[in-house]
């Protein structure tokens, strides 16, 4: 589904990603972990098409298409979803209007008919249950005045509405308390299928108790320096990142 080959990216001339290789197949959950500043969020942003990042080398194909050629909106319409680390508050744009516009533009791209208001609302109600989000929240402006947990739940709710094939969760767990974490993870797990895949970018092993990964990759200094199964995450939790840094630094000398 997703093939990343030797991906290099920089921001304002500073290289951040220095040769990422990763393949994600349908049905898989990949966790990307790593110390602060290792390039985790950059990788998520580059995949979603954030313009500040310049890809200097390498390629990314998604369902056979060159992902890097596509605009951010076309990536979303192709089925890439980025759950933002910091969801943006947009005063004056109602959550419901925004979502309906988004859903219908995605549907149009995929050659599907636009949903009318009634159908849209009934789908919305059904998906709201997944993340236990309150209708009142959705009648407000998008993310405006939402708590941290509400914002993250709203991200997963949007994911449910847009039905992506590849979801990238960028530190969705950061700052969440246990209850919110449980609700968010539960939502993600229910949306999982053999057709779609998830990349979970996280700092904390805790999330992986709820969203169980098939693979764990450790990102350090712009490269994946170690890959393994969920046991690797436990080892990281116990021993920290220093031993990985040492290994990687030693290898690069």
């Amino acid at each position, binding site marked *: 589904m997703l093939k990343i080959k030797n991906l290099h990216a920089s921001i304002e001339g500073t290289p951040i990603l220095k040769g990422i290789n990763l393949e994600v197949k349908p049905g898989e959950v990949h966790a990307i972990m790593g110390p602060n500043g290792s390039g985790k969020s950059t990788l998520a942003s580059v995949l*979603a*098409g*954030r*313009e500040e990042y310049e890809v200097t080398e390498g390629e990314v194909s998604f369902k056979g298409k060159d992902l890097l050629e596509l*605009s*951010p*909106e076309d*990536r*979303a*319409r192709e089925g890439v*979803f*980025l759950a*933002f680390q910091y*969801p*943006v508050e*947009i*005063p*004056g*744009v109602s959550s419901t*209007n*925004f*979502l309906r*516009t*988004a*859903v219908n*533009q*995605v549907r149009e*791209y995929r050659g599907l008919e636009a949903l009318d208001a009634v159908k849209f609302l009934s789908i919305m109600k059904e998906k709201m249950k997944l993340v236990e989000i309150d209708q009142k929240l959705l009648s407000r*402006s998008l993310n405006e005045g939402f708590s941290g947990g509400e914002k993250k739940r709203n991200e997963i709710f*949007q994911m449910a509405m*847009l039905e992506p094939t590849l979801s990238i969760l960028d530190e969705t767990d950061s700052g969440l308390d246990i209850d919110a974490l449980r609700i968010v993870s539960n939502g993600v797990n229910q949306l999982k299928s053999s057709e779609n895949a998830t990349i979970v970018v996280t700092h904390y092993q805790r999330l992986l108790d709820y969203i169980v990964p098939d693979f764990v990759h450790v990102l350090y200094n712009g490269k994946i320096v170690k890959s393994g199964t969920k046991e690797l995450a436990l080892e990281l939790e116990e021993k920290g990142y220093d031993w990985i840094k040492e290994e990687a630094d030693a290898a690069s000398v």
Partner: protein
Amino acid sequence: MTTITKNKAIDLFLENNPNFSTFENLRKSGLEFLEMKGLPHLKEEEYKFTQISKKIEQNVSSFKSAIKTELTAENVKSNLFEGFDGDVVVFNNGHFDAELSSISAQNYSFLKLSETQPDLLGQIAKNEKDPFAALNSLTFEDGVHISVEKGKKVEKPIFLIHFNKANEGQIINSRILIEIAENAEVTFIENTVSLDEEVYFSNAVVEVKVNQNAHGYYYRLQNENRKAISANNFATDIHRDATFTSVATQLQGDMLRNNLTLNLLDSGCVGNMYGLYLLNGKTHVDNHTNVDHTKPHCDSNELYKGILADSSRGVFNGKIFVRQDAQKTNAFQQNNNILMSEDAIVNTKPQLEIWADDVKCSHGCTTGQLDEEALFYLQARGIGKEHAKGLLLYAFAGEVFEHIAYEPFKEYCIQLVQERLGSSF
């Protein structure tokens, strides 16, 4: 002419002074002021960003007043917006057009100024406050006088609609006096329609007296042709416990200057001023607002927002005076701008003068670009870039229209703005 030359424009105006015999005192004081001060010159503080005298000199070739132009009922009908139901007052090149107007005069009286000869004329928008007000006093032929009856509500809005098209004269003058008696209530809508794409200079004065515990709502739209030059003096005296709300929207013109003054003359008054300027091309819009708190326990709220594309220019100047007597004043002012191009310019200046010590006053202004992070967020959800821009710009602008209480006009403004922003949602 024995005038002291201040600039060319004033000489040209004075050479063409029609010398009407009516309103002798008003015209005399206007002439005296203009002979002394002239029109605003290059260094005049109040006009330093809006060189309107120069603009007039360079673009206007005939300084005669325009006579009535050909105008049909169809012109009027096609400029009423969907859902409008109310009286229509038609101005043809600034002259009241009785035939095309439809005036029920239900709960109000409607007369020409020449019929009522009110002493109040020129007492609210004073000649000495602005040279264009003085010029209007000299050059307007006749105007209208609308008086809402005591304790009555004019149920349907009164739509003042100006049709402008220069002929042998390019100067269009209009003069409106509105009195809202005690405990009365009325809503006005005002629009200006350019009948062609040629130059004219319109110079308008509107004076409103809102008496005790009365309520006035005034919604103004300016969407003129790209050569239109316009000066507007709008002044309101607000008396005890009365409320006045102005919502002004500017979409197009060459150079538009609006002076809006609210005088809060007694306790318990509320004055609201909301505005949106959504500009492109070379349109230059200058909003000078002025709210004067003279007595305790009055509120004023002001929100002006601007979106400027291409090489358009916006000027905002917001004066708030709080006099020594005006304790317990609440005065809020906000001006926010989004620049869509590197060639667009905004000059914004809040000006607060506060002599009372127990007041709540705040002001703020921002100028920036469209929020890139918000744009990316919408795109990342599959919304096309142009559509996303429209959505964000409308979200920014739409706040102003929340203050239009007459739904059909609000919808009409929203529609115009959304068309301009190139998006439907």
